[in-house]
Structures are given as C-alpha cells and as structure tokens.
C-alpha cells in the first residue's frame, strides 16, 4: 500500500474512540481483563497504566491533571499506530483508553492493554504503544496546583 492509498483508507474508516471522560476506573480494567477469558488462544496480557502523580512545582502540589486533545487528529493518529502495531506484532487484542477532562492525583489516566499467544509480542507491543502515545498523540495535560493555579505538563 502506498502512502496516498493508506491515508485515504484511514480517512474512510471511522477510527475507534480511545477517550473517556474523567479517570479510568479499576473496575473497568478488571472487566476488560475478564472479557478475555473466552479467547483461549491468549497466553499473556501486558498492561500499562498511567497514574496522576502528586508532583511538587514551585512548592505547590499537583492535585489533578486536566486533559484536552485535538480529538479528531488524535484518533486518526491512534488508528495509524494501531495498524502499525498490529502488522508488526502477532497480537490477539489491543485496547487503548485515555482520559479527557479532570483526573485527580492517584487516579488512572491511561490504560494500554495488549494480548498475544506468547508473552513477547504483548509486552513489546504494549511498550511501543505507550511510547508512541506519549510522543505522537495531540493531547495536553494541564497540571492543577493546590492553590488553583496551573502549569502545562511537559512529557519527559
């Protein structure tokens, strides 16, 4: 497939939504795990969870992060990443969830979940997806400080 065909193909499909309003609940994660018990070709699952950290900025503690995104572009990019990862690794499943809006310290804002017959594919794919999400998705985190001031987050 050349680049133009690929792009037009992506444009035609409706990319899967990855965004959840607010934090990702632990019960949602276990439901997602439980659903995979019927897929008995799976031997390993790899999960990454991003949790909002109580960083201290200029003596003020972060109490929450407010996420915004360029939704349409983020979903298109995520669709491209998804296709690339599926062609690179023999995965059974891949699920991505990212919060939008306010996520308090200690809550989960990112849930990446990959499954494969043998562990290596799930682990390597999960790792690569997390890196690509951080680097390539147009999402921004506004760190809300305890005095209600804020600072725009910078990824390391």
């Amino acid at each position, binding site marked *: 497939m050349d680049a133009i065909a690929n792009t037009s193909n992506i444009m035609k499909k409706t990319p899967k939504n990855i965004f959840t309003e607010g934090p990702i609940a632990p019960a949602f994660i276990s439901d997602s795990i439980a659903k995979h018990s019927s897929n008995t070709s799976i031997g390993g699952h790899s999960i990454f969870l991003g949790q909002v950290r109580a960083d201290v900025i200029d003596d003020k503690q972060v109490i929450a992060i407010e996420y915004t995104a*360029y939704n349409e572009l983020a979903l298109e990019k995520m669709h491209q990443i998804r296709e690339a990862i599926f062609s690179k690794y023999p995965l059974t499943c891949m699920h991505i969830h990212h919060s939008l809006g306010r996520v308090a310290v200690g809550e989960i*804002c990112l849930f990446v979940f990959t499954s494969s017959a043998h562990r290596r594919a799930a682990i390597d794919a999960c790792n690569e997806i997390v890196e690509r999400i951080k680097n390539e998705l*147009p999402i921004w985190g506004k760190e809300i400080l305890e005095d209600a001031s804020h600072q725009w987050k910078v*990824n390391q």
Partner: protein
Amino acid sequence: MLIMENGKRIQVFFFGKLSEIAGAATTLSNLHNTDELIQHLHTQFPALANEKFAVAVNKQTIHTNTELPDNCTVALLPPFSGG
C-alpha cells in the same frame, strides 16, 4: 458570506497553552500560505513568540511553508503531554 467571497476562509485552532494566549479558535481570511498565517498570528498575539508549536493543515503536520486550500483547518500544536 462576504468573507467567503472575499477570500479563503481559514479556521484556526489553538491547543494546550496556546489556547490561553489566543483562545480556542479563530476564523481568518485572505491569507495564502502558512508563513503568512503564522506572521499574522504573531502580530495579533505577540505572546506566541515565546511558544514552541507545530502546525497542522487539515490534520496533516507540515514542515515547510504550505499553500492554504479553501475552507481549511489549521491547528497550532504545542508539545504533546498525554499519557
């Protein structure tokens, strides 16, 4: 309608920190390419000078001066910080 007849209608979106400087969105016209657009925005919002951002035209990130098609969408994207 007058704007549309007078020239290209360009919708500009500002994200992250840039939305605090310029608001979430604005509509411009009579600008032919991204260099002209960026110049215009710098004049209108001098605080942009201190900010790093990428530019996407119709959801494609551009790397050189790019012609603006009719009714296009331009997005100014500061460094990402998702995850």
